[in-house]
């Protein structure tokens, strides 16, 4: 075997490829289908059900149609710069995902990566906006950046509270501190952690824009902001980058607060005894993904039921309300750890 690499390295690579190609990338189609059917049910109507059985093939029809759109103007070098930058942002948000105990490269700072991928996404939107000649593009790009910075600050502090509780920022450490049953999840261990959990969810929504998967049916700005210049494949790439940002943010939320991939201990011992390591990692992954999907659909449902507030109202809310709560949660978590020894 290659020196220094564990025996399971090749099997890990195989499982990682299987997970990325068959579960993570198509999850965009699954979530967009569930989102359209769920929001249709909420609005007392029937979602797409003419394409394929119960409309299952609707996302694939949309994908194939978008790939066929020929852009009316030729591909200039600004677009290629933006295209490569956005592809890098998508890779960044997907590369740093906590996928299960046996599969990841775990370093001391590995759980900081999703924040930097969110910032890279915001920078991508800003560059896209400024590169367009339209006013809507400029204003949209600047608004996105203001929105993301106001969201990242309280989220980062809430993330530190979890670090205090678990004593480190490794994914393994964060996951092993939480058990399978809800009362052992970090968000329910102390009231301050609960505040940190709520602050993390809401600031995540502010980063990704409320509602997160904002279709271009009713744009927030008058002219659709950053999306106004895009069409066809570029629009698809931009929407996918927003979707995978939302997917990685929900995964991080599940890992930090909602009991990551920890299965019941009895089940783990039995499987360990049977030397079925790959089965354990797969079950852990699917347990993590099911919780992530539940979080995503709940967030979409809550966000789409309420009217949307203006961008400056969102940023005011983030600075004036979320940040103080995050700081209070930080101090509380620190005191809780030092005084209350369990």
């Amino acid at each position, binding site marked *: 075997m290659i020196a220094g690499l564990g025996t399971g390295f090749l099997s890990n690579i195989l499982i990682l490829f299987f997970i990325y190609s068959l579960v993570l990338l198509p999850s965009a189609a699954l979530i967009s289908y569930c989102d359209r059917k769920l929001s249709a049910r909420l609005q007392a109507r*029937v979602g*797409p059900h003419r*394409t394929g059985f119960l409309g299952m093939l609707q996302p694939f029809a949309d994908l*194939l149609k978008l790939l066929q*759109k020929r*852009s009316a103007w030729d591909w200039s070098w600004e677009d290629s710069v933006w295209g490569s930058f956005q592809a890098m942002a998508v890779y960044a948000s997907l590369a740093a995902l906590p996928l299960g105990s046996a599969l990841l490269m775990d370093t001391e700072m590995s759980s900081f990566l999703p924040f930097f991928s969110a910032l890279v996404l915001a920078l991508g939107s800003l560059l896209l906006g400024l590169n367009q000649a339209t006013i809507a593009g400029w204003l949209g790009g600047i608004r996105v950046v203001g929105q993301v910075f106001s969201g990242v600050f309280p989220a980062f502090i809430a993330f530190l509270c979890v670090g205090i509780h678990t004593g480190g920022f490794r994914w393994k450490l964060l996951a092993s501190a939480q058990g399978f049953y809800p009362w052992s999840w970090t968000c329910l261990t102390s009231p301050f952690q609960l505040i940190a959990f709520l602050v993390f969810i809401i600031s995540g929504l502010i980063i990704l824009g409320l509602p997160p998967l904002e*279709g271009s049916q009713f744009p927030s700005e008058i002219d659709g902001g950053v999306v106004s210049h895009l069409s066809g494949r570029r629009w698809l790439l931009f929407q996918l980058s927003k979707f995978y940002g939302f997917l990685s943010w929900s995964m991080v939320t599940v890992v930090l607060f909602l009991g990551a991939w920890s299965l019941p201990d009895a089940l783990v011992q039995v499987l360990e005894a049977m030397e079925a390591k790959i089965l354990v990692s797969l079950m852990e992954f699917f347990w993590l993904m099911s919780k992530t999907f539940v979080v995503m659909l709940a967030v979409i449902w809550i966000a789409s039921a309420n009217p949307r507030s203006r961008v400056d109202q969102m940023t005011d809310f983030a600075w004036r309300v979320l940040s103080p709560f995050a700081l209070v949660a930080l101090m509380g978590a620190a005191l809780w750890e030092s005084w209350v020894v369990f």
Partner: protein
Amino acid sequence: MLGARFYASTLSRLLAWARSRSLWYVYTGSGCCADEVMNLMGCRYDLERFGCVPQSDPKQADLLIVSGLVSEKASSHLKDFYESMLTPRYVLALGACVNGASAFYQEANFFKLQKVSQIIPVDVYVPGCPPRPEAIMNGIITLQEKICGQASTSF
């Protein structure tokens, strides 16, 4: 071994099926017919069952639903609106005003109201003033069949 023509035809049929099953539409209207298109978005005549999602920007839409009168002043703007859509694009024309048959088109056409077919190529006409929502849905189904090139299967 099946000939290359077989693969080309199945691929083109698949692409045509994809184009027909996800027509994202944007509508320009004067009044009565534009209200009917707004009602189509509702729950009784849900257009999203056919995969038609309303878009706000012509760049992201591929079906233009034109309705109402096109006066001389508005015809150049309608042309620019249609040109800014990306190919492949389709046009569904609603109502009688669109092909010059409604109450406002006099013999001598006093205010130079124009027919939409003089300005942009139209794929499907829907009669009625204003056409009933079921008629508009039938128009969309015929457009889907036209894109697919044959009678539409339930698939």
